């Protein structure tokens, strides 16, 4: 499993676009926002947590079809599926690799982008914290979507249509946590809900992903 994780990470780094692409996309989303809503700093700082969350979600979505599609095309996935590893574990490792290559860089870079959007000082910690808790859920749910559409040619758009509704609860609670944190309001409820969603999907969704992957490999 560790070898698989290391392989995925190496591929992401060497093939290019793993770390860089998501971050660049995130940066562009953040830059486009002041152009579209106007550069007024009061307004920007008010909407900053939501925009940053949305940007992170879109950057995550962009890289979802890389999780399984490349391995599917060159046959690696069949090999891995017939190896003694349980497929649930493989899927979990794939999600972890995806999170390490897209989610974690986003978490680290988020304060910098917060600066661009004039995020209030109190908000930085909460933003990073909410992204740290929330982005694993995005990766795990995304892996489920990728497993569903892996057998479909040019399934990228369909993948977005399937995954975006599933992202709604995570986005709501993540952005709410960041916003409340930035405004100094009570954060317990969104924090608990967000953590609940993340741990829940980590515990349950790999089984569903492995199930649909088995169906697709049949």
């Amino acid at each position, binding site marked *: 499993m560790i070898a698989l994780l290391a392989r995925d990470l190496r591929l992401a780094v060497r093939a290019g676009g793993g770390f860089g692409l998501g971050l660049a996309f995130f940066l562009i989303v953040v830059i486009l926002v002041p152009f579209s809503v106007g550069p007024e700093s009061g307004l920007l700082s008010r909407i900053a947590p939501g925009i940053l969350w949305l940007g992170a979600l879109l950057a995550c979505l962009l890289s979802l079809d890389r999780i399984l599609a490349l391995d599917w095309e060159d046959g690696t996935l069949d090999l891995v599926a017939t190896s003694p590893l349980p497929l649930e574990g493989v899927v979990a490792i794939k999600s972890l690799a995806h999170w390490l290559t897209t989610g974690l860089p986003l978490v680290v870079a988020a304060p910098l982008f917060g600066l661009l959007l004039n995020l209030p000082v109190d908000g930085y910690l909460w933003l990073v914290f909410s992204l740290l808790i929330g982005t694993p859920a995005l990766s795990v749910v995304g892996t489920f979507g990728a497993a569903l559409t892996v057998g*479909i040619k040019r399934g990228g758009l*369909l993948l977005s249509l399937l995954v975006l*509704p*599933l992202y*709604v609860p995570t986005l*709501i*609670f993540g952005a*709410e946590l960041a916003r409340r944190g930035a405004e100094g309001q009570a954060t317990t409820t969104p924090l608990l809900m967000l953590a609940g969603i993340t741990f829940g999907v980590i515990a349950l969704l790999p089984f*569903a992903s492995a199930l649909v992957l088995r169906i697709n490999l049949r």
Partner: protein
Amino acid sequence: MNSIWEYANPVKFSKTAGVVVPWASALAGICLFVGLVWGFFFTPDDFRQGSTVKIIYLHVPSAMMAINIWVMMLVASLVWLIRRHHVSVLAAKGAATVGVVMTLIALFTGAVWGQPMWGTWWVWDPRLTSFLILFLFYLGYLALWEAIDNPDTAADLTSVLCIVGSVFALLSRYAVNFWNQGLHQGASVMRAGAVTGTDTEEKVSNIFFYPLLLCIFGFVLLFVALVFLRTRTEIHKRRTSALLARERLG
């Protein structure tokens, strides 16, 4: 002997559908005709809402159906995954198309109703928002069906999506509830307290309730007719493609 699983046999199902479809559609037609005519022309205008209240006869039944159809799809998907009855999953597929139309009707009539009442076509209210998300789930479900060539793979994948989607739809429902406070009124048609008579305060008045009940029955019957019809069509389509394949081989 007379177990419900007998109807998993496509031939038997088709025969049953042949009996059910005309009866259900006729009854649905009667219920809807009487209910709508009664509702539109023979009930008084509401003292606050005027004649716009009459959208209720389309809005409430379609909204109820939109949710219940997804539940029915969930059950059908589970039956398919557990017992591999093809008819079950085809029924889910047929129901999804009806469900997406019902959701659209509910959203549209809601907007038309909301404009004069709230002064806006759309607000980001929990009920409205979760319906929009439900609509997206229906679209995703149907799109996945269309995208996959192998019918059994498609059935399996959409069933899993339906189950996972149900969990997330429920989660979204409460998430958006938390996210924003609503303009839409709470449940006022079917409430336990209202039926037993312990609270009559916010319940829809009986003058409006009886035709509404008739419309709800009409929508349910219409759904039953459409599902049987669509499922039978799917079975026939499958049989046709199997015959064509055999012809090509032979």
